[in-house]
């Protein structure tokens, strides 16, 4: 009797939904981290902050939705920004909407998810139904943000533990790393001016707080100390988040994963395409770089170029497999 092998192919729409499901969950996690960092930074003494900096505006900038925010609100403060980035129905990239979109994608491809993954995503969605604007008062948002991070961990973990290692898994993983690379680059870019060496006051308490907040936002503060065993220095923060292969959120680590998952697809489908070639180029460019080179040619320019290349890789994935 013939035993059917699982064919190494799936519906393009299903692959598309898995990819976006992962991206939206990853983005929800990132938004939660940005909000936590903003909360922490905004509590620093105001006098020491540079004139014109507003941590809440900076959070919106990092999330890429400052313009959309300004259409709805006049002032960026803890209340308005948390509402906009966490709970708002009107912001299609709020945490709530990200989780709702993730669940809509999950429902569209239930047959491709394991029961464990569905349970986490659908359970989160059910809990969100009880969340009304105004139910959360300042001071309670940290509990909500912890809950969000926990959901994201569980989606990630249940996928990792239960999905078959075949194309569906690789598409889901690609979504995670494509989004994460973009997020890490953005958070660095918004803060890049703090990372630039300044003649006067390197090592001041305020700088330390800024750098630490960036590290904390990508859960890397402890890792930093283990890797470098010295006080927080801006070029080392950049090194950790861009070039350190051990750091799971660094650009190079994300690209290592993107290349590996695309290679798995190419092997299973027996064909290498544009996405594989482009991703490998981005990866090699990162691997052969150094912090000195990056700072010399300009950190901001480097990050802008990286975000653009990452978008091109994502577009290649979409065209090759998803539409």
């Amino acid at each position: 009797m013939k035993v059917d092998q699982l064919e190494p192919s799936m519906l393009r729409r299903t692959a598309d939904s898995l990819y976006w499901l992962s991206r939206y969950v990853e983005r929800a996690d990132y938004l939660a981290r940005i909000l936590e960092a903003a909360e922490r930074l905004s509590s620093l003494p105001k006098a020491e902050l540079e004139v014109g900096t507003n941590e809440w505006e900076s959070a919106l900038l990092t999330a890429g939705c400052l313009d959309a925010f300004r259409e709805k609100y006049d002032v960026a403060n803890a209340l308005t920004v948390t509402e906009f980035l966490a709970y708002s129905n009107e912001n299609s990239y709020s945490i709530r909407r990200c989780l709702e979109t993730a669940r809509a994608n999950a429902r569209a491809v239930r047959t491709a998810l394991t029961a464990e993954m569905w349970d986490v995503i659908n359970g989160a969605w059910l809990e969100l139904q009880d969340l009304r604007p105004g139910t959360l008062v300042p001071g309670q948002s940290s509990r909500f943000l912890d809950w969000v991070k926990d959901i994201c961990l569980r989606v990630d973990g249940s996928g990792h533990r239960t999905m078959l290692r075949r194309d569906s898994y690789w598409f889901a993983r690609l979504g995670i790393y494509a989004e994460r690379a973009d997020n890490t680059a953005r958070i660095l870019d918004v803060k890049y001016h703090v990372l630039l060496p300044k003649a006067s006051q390197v090592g001041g308490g305020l700088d330390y707080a800024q750098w630490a907040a960036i590290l904390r936002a990508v859960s890397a503060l402890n890792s930093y100390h283990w890797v470098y065993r010295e006080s927080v220095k801006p070029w080392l923060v950049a090194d950790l988040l861009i070039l350190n292969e051990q750091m799971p959120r660094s650009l190079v680590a994300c690209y290592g994963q993107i290349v590996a998952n695309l290679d798995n697809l190419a092997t299973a489908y027996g064909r290498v395409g544009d996405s594989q070639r482009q991703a490998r180029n981005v990866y090699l460019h990162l691997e052969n770089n150094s912090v000195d080179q990056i700072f010399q040619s300009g950190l901001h320019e480097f990050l802008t170029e990286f975000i653009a290349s990452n978008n091109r890789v994502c577009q290649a994935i979409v065209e090759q497999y998803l539409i």
Partner: protein
Amino acid sequence: MAFDEMRNGSGEVRPTYAKIADWLKTVSANDLERRRYEAELFYRRGGITFAVYGDEQGGERIIPYDIVPRILSRPEWNKLSRGLEQRVRAINLYLADIYGRQDILRAGLIPEELIWRNATFRPEMAGLRVPHNIYVHIAGIDVVRVDGDDFYVLEDNTRTPSGVSYMLGGREISIRLMPELYATHGVAPIENYPNELLATLRSVAPQQSSSDPTVALLTPGPFNSAYYEHSFLADRMGVELVEGRDLFVQDAVVYMRMTQGPKRVDVIYRRVDDDFIDPLTFRSDTMLGVPGLFEAYVAGNVTLANAVGTGISDDKVIYAYMPQIVKFYLGEEPILKNVPTWRCREAEHLAYVLDHLEELVVKEAHGSGGYGMLVGPQASSSEIEEFRARLKAMPAAYIAQPTLSLSTCPTFVDQGIAPRHVDLRPFVLSGADGVRIVPGGLTRVALREGSLVVNSSQGGGTKDTWIVDF
């Protein structure tokens, strides 16, 4: 007084329900409430939901589940099952005839205009041969009891009947939440339904397709009320759940858009209505279907299950002729009874109906889902007058039937355990290799006291149905 499936006329418990009755004596209302709550949680967490059309806040709702199972004895089931097989065999022969030689029309058994003027008749199907002459691969036949002897067919659902996921979900809950009761009954298993469905679908693949035909389930998408069921069945069968945009037709062959490239599809279990499957042949104002699908079907390159045009067999006017249809094609007496039906298009029938509106159930001839019907004995006088006007204006759009006193089963409601009216939808699968019926079906229960409307869209619930040896 309705027939009570648990107790006889003098209030004694029937042998089939002895263990249920004992069990009901030992469990407290709190315990039942807890189990009911857990059943609800099982549905919620599983996303086992349906959408009610036109319901504003709606979105997704769960179907109420009654945890007291309904029992049918093996001999009762055997008789019902033979009747179902007979009825569906006759329906398939009738459809082959209507879209073929039309012997039954020439014999004068059914007035021709009932076919030609019927919107569910598809002239595009005339003269077309479908694989193994099977039109209705999946049928959901709604039956009710009014006494201990007979089953009456209320409706033949031969287009895209739904509900089987609730039948299977209900069984899952019985096993999880009432293990002590389930284990003592020796209940006939139904969990193999998806396997039987897949075997049925594979058996009707086009002759020229490979020995390993590719099956897909076509859904209108996540906004359809039965979407959960579509994804559930696709998952349990291990076939792709596709939407129209996932398919395309090239040179009269249907393909799925796969990550690795196009893949040929041989059999489509479609849960999209005839009107929407192909904008080039049927309604053009829709994105649900696949342009060219009907052309591929006519070319014999893909099998659609159910076939196109099966609505001409579950129309409520045609229903009235089912006993003659069974006799005409099989030369047998129908095992299942038909409910006497007045066809309001006929003058004497209409006159009778208008005189007896208070006692009758009036239904739209082409409606479904319990919408647009009048239950005479429960209607207000203004509702009755409204229907009288409608009947006079468009008599052909209605049929009427006596109000059947549907049987009742013990049901857990606010007041405790009380009898509520039920029906049963068993699912009949017809393939090239015969008819398959898993023992049981979806029991629907009208949860409101006295109500006879069991549709989930109208406040009905479901029960697990146990076929047990006695």
